[in-house]
C-alpha cells in the first residue's frame, strides 16, 4: 500500500506536464470525439492531488508520526454527562445517527460510542444504544463489547445494550422517544447523521430532563441541536472529535489530509480573487470550468 502515493504522484506530475504543454487547447476545446476527456483534466488533477495527500497522511499516521490536532471544545462535556448519569444512577442513551454504516458520520459516531462505552464500563453505568441498521448493530455491539473487555468489565456487558429498532426514520424516532420517557436516561448523546427527527429527539430528551450532547455534520439540523442540547459538535468537529478520541490512524490521517487540501483551497480562492480583481484572472478562472 505504501508505494501507492509514489505512483500517484508520478501520475500527477505527468498530468501537470500535460497541462502545461497543452494548457490552452487542452482545457478550452470541447473534445467530444477524442477518447480521453481533456475537458475534465482539472477534475482529474484535483483527484490525483487529493488522493496523494490523503494517502500520505494516512501513511504517516500509521507510522506513528506525531500529528497535531487541536483540542475540540465539548469533548469534556461527554465525560461530564456520563459522570452525572452515574451519580444519578440512571442510564446513558447513545444514538449513532439514523443512517447505515456507509456514512462517514455513522462511522465517526460508532467510534465515539467506543469511547463512551469505556466510561460507562468504568462506572458501571447502564448504556442503551438503539440503532436503525443491521450493520450499525453489528459494529456497535463489537465496539461496546471491546470497550467493556478492555476495561475489565466484560461481565457487565450485555448484547442488549446495542439493540435493533424499527426501519423507518420516524418510526425509529417514535421508538426512541418512547425509550426516553419510559427509561429516563440521565444523558442523551447523539452522534452521527440526523435528519428531521433531530428536534423530536432533542426536545423530548429535554422535557425528560436529560443532559444532551449532539454532534452532526448536517448543517440543516445543527440549529436545532444548538437550541435544544447542552453542547453541540458542529460539522467536521464531529470527525475531528472521533479522530481525537480514537487516535485511529485512518481517521486522523484522513482529517489531516483534508486540512491540508482545505488550506490549498483557501490559497487558490485568495489567488483567484486577487487575479480577478486585477482583471487578469480569466485564464486562472477558466481552470475551474467543468467539462461536460
Amino acid at each position, binding site marked *: 500500500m505504501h508505494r501507492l502515493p509514489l505512483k500517484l504522484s508520478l501520475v500527477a506530475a505527468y498530468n501537470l506536464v500535460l497541462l502545461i504543454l497543452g494548457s490552452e487547447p487542452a482545457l478550452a476545446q470541447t473534445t467530444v470525439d477524442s477518447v480521453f476527456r481533456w475537458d475534465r483534466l482539472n477534475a482529474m488533477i*484535483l483527484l490525483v492531488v487529493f488522493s496523494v495527500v490523503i494517502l500520505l497522511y494516512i501513511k504517516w499516521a500509521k507510522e506513528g508520526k506525531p500529528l497535531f490536532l487541536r483540542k475540540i471544545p465539548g469533548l469534556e462535556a461527554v465525560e461530564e454527562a456520563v459522570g452525572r448519569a452515574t451519580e444519578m444512577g440512571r442510564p446513558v442513551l447513545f444514538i449513532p445517527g439514523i443512517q447505515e454504516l456507509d456514512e462517514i458520520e455513522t462511522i465517526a459516531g460508532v467510534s465515539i460510542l467506543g469511547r463512551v462505552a469505556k466510561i460507562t464500563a468504568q462506572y458501571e453505568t447502564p448504556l442503551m444504544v438503539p440503532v436503525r441498521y443491521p450493520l450499525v448493530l453489528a459494529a456497535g455491539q463489537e465496539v461496546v463489547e471491546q470497550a467493556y473487555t478492555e476495561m475489565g468489565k466484560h461481565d457487565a456487558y450485555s448484547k442488549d445494550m446495542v439493540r435493533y429498532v424499527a*426501519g423507518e426514520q*420516524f418510526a425509529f424516532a417514535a421508538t426512541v422517544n*418512547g425509550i426516553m420517557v419510559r427509561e429516563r436516561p440521565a444523558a442523551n448523546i447523539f452522534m452521527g447523521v440526523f435528519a428531521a427527527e433531530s428536534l423530536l429527539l432533542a426536545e423530548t430528551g429535554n422535557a425528560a430532563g436529560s443532559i444532551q450532547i449532539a454532534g452532526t455534520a448536517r*448543517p*440543516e439540523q445543527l*440549529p436545532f441541536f444548538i437550541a435544544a442540547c447542552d453542547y453541540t459538535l458542529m460539522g467536521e468537529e464531529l470527525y475531528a472529535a472521533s479522530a481525537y478520541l480514537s487516535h485511529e490512524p485512518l481517521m486522523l490521517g484522513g482529517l489531516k489530509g483534508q*486540512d491540508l487540501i482545505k488550506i490549498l483551497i483557501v490559497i487558490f480562492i485568495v489567488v483567484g480573487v486577487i487575479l480577478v480583481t486585477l482583471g487578469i484572472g480569466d485564464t486562472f478562472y477558466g481552470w*475551474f470550468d467543468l467539462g461536460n
Partner: protein
Amino acid sequence: MSGIEILQIWVAAFFTLAIFSFLYKDNPFFKLAEHVFAGLSAGYYVGLVWKSIILQQLWYPMMAGEWLLVFPAMLGALMFARLVPKISWVSRVSLAFVMGTTAGVFLVSQLNGMILPQMQATMLPLVLSEGAGATLMALVMVIGVISTLIYFYFSKEHTGALGVTAKVGVWFIMIAFGAHFGYTVMARVSLLIGRVNFLYEDWLGTFLLIF
C-alpha cells in the same frame, strides 16, 4: 362520499390523533400507533423491493433473455449469508461491490461537481463597477467562505490571526444557522397546516354526513 371513504378518513384521523396525543403525554394509543407504524414501514420496503427490483429489474429482463443478470442476482442472494455466522463473510463480497461502486461515483462527483464550481464561484472581483452593493456582496462571500473553512481547520490551535479568522467564522456560521432555523420553522408549520387541514376539512366533514 361512500362508506369506505368515510372509513378511510376515520382510520387516518385516528392514527393522526394517536400520534398527536404524545404532545400531552405518552399513552397506550401512541404506543399502538408507534408499533403499527414500525411494522407497516418495514412491510412497505418489502413490497417495493419485490416490484421494482426483483420483478422489474431482475425477473422480467431475465425471462426476456438477459442471462447476465444471474450475477447481480447471485450477489444479492449472497447478502443473506450474513444471517449464518459461519459464512457471513461471504456477504462482504456483495457489500464491497455496492460500496465500491458508490464510492467511485462519490469520489468523482464530490471533487468535480462540488468543489471545483464552488471554488470558482467564490473567485469574485472585489472592485466592481456595479457599485458598493455588489462589492459588499463579494466581500461578504469571500470572507464568509474563507473564515468558515478556517473555523473547521483542526491542525493548529485557534490563536493569533487564525483565531481572529475562526472567530469571524463563528459569527458567520451563527447568522447562517439562525437564518436556517427561521427558514425551517416555516417547513414544520406548513406540515402542521397540512394535518390540521385534513382533520378540519376531511374528518370534521364526515361528521356532517354522518350526523
